[in-house]
């Protein structure tokens, strides 16, 4: 597995406040990594370290396979595009001039792709309108266009849907998915809007109090959050045989527990298990939403 970013035991303290506390995480190449955490959990601090705006107090990370101490890491940063907190835009310039500015800064040889970029983010018809007069949503889209200059391999977006209307959110989401699928761009998207992230992310990292409490793939998360029946039985091997015969999807958790993904007729199931000489101790319906799963990860209702 190739990783774009690997953090190892990162700690960042500001005077007496510890923003990151031994954080370790891995971002796979080609993934859309949903970085989830409440306000103040450490999301933006990690992004600041990753982008080189700040240095960790201790710990290290690798970006594009280069260690933090590697002097050539700075060159690798040219493969990054980012919108950290608010888009970095020149307010007295037009959308086009902002992109020209970014092209010049990156030393790109021509402005050929500039109009395509504006079209891609839906700002092709803004003409001479200054960024100062743009709505928040237009600024977010221009910020994304600036981040896309120079065909980056890795894009970091800090709360990208902030201030966007529902239509804008859909457009940004589809754009991210398109870029990920067609160009293979890896995304790190920090957000606390779980529903929005769940429509995008292929991998998740849940952060709380400066630590990653759980990293998982979207599939693992879907399984966690699927409607299921958790069964405690005397023998999960027999359970597996019965479910295979019935054509029902299931996952064995250990020797006693298994999750079954179907609406079960309890009496019928009990009858079949009795025939197979397998005892059902408990059956519990589980229907966990993404939010409740997240809350359970970061310590329950105190965060609700």
């Amino acid at each position, binding site marked *: 597995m190739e990783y774009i970013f690997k953090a190892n035991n990162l700690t960042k303290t500001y005077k007496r406040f510890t923003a990151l506390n031994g954080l370790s995480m891995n971002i796979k190449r080609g993934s859309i990594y949903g970085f989830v955490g409440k306000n103040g959990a450490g999301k933006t601090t990690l992004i*600041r370290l990753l*982008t*080189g*705006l*700040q*240095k960790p107090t201790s710990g290290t990370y690798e970006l594009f396979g280069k260690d933090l101490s590697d002097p050539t890491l*700075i*060159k*690798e*940063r*040219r493969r*990054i*595009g*980012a919108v*950290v*907190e*608010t*888009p*970095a*835009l*020149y*307010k*007295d*310039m037009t959308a086009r*001039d902002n992109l*020209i*500015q*970014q092209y*010049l*800064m*990156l*030393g790109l040889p021509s402005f050929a792709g500039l109009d395509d970029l504006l079209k891609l983010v839906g700002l092709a018809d803004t003409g001479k309108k200054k960024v100062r007069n743009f709505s928040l949503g237009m600024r977010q889209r221009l910020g994304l266009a*600036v981040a896309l200059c*120079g065909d980056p391999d890795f894009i970091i977006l800090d709360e990208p849907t902030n201030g966007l209307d529902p239509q804008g959110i859909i457009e940004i989401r589809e754009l991210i998915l398109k870029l990920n699928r067609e160009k293979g761009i890896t995304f790190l998207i920090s957000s606390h809007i779980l529903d929005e992230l769940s429509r995008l992310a292929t991998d998740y990292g849940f952060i709380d109090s400066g630590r990653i409490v759980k990293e998982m793939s979207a599939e693992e998360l879907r399984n966690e959050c699927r409607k299921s029946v958790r069964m405690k039985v005397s023998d999960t091997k027999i359970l597996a045989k019965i479910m295979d015969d019935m054509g029902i999807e299931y996952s064995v958790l250990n020797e006693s527990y298994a999750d079954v993904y179907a609406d079960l007729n309890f009496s019928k199931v009990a009858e079949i298990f009795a025939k197979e000489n397998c005892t059902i101790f408990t059956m519990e319906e589980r229907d966990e939403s993404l939010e409740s799963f997240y809350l359970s990860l970061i310590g329950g209702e105190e965060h609700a």
Partner: protein
Amino acid sequence: MRRVLYADMFNVFKNKVFQGSIALTVLYPLMEALLFKLIYRFLDAELPGEDVITAYSSIASIVITATIIFLLVNDFSDGAIRNKIINGVKRNHIALSSILTGAIISGLMCMSTCISQTIVIRFLTTGFSSLNPRDVSLYYTAQFAVSIAVGVLMSSIVIVFGGTIIPYFLGLVIAFLFRVANLMVTDKLYPQDGHVMITGMRLLIYNIYDRFCPFSYFTGTLNHPLKDCFIGCGVLIAISILITLPVFKRKELK
């Protein structure tokens, strides 16, 4: 670093504040000459070129300071500096590019003033009575060097203190204090009536300030060889850069 400087200059030329500042440096000598001409007409006298050539220098440090600080502070607050770091530009290059941008802005402001003054003197005054073309060119050269040195200092202040209110406060306080110091030193070293009354260490300090401090050349007269002016400017530029680069390298940005 060239590409960063190129991008910075693109931003500066598009900026309304810079365009306004250049317009001010062009119009100020003209407006002042017209005002003086009116006063001289009441006094039934002709306007000499010497009164126009020194006009802008009295406000130069404040105008340069305000323009540079405004432009560069915006780079910090708009996230432009942050964006450069994210995109893998070396911090030294970012700082040097900002310092060079400040120097170019102040140099351009000085040049536009000199051109405007020359045109105004040619058409609205009787010309110079005490200055020859060599004196004028030496004076303009000194003003240009001093403007660049002050531009570098103000850029450095912004880079060290970032996009906060501190650069505005500190920059304008420095410009104001040196303006007061200039008046004090001029009054003591070049009294209107009588002799120089200060002696010893005080005289030495005043002399050093007058010879080597770039701000002292904003008094409107060139009292020392150009070499002294260059030494003062060179020292100020070197100190500014030597302090700024390591501070910015360690600076934590948000």
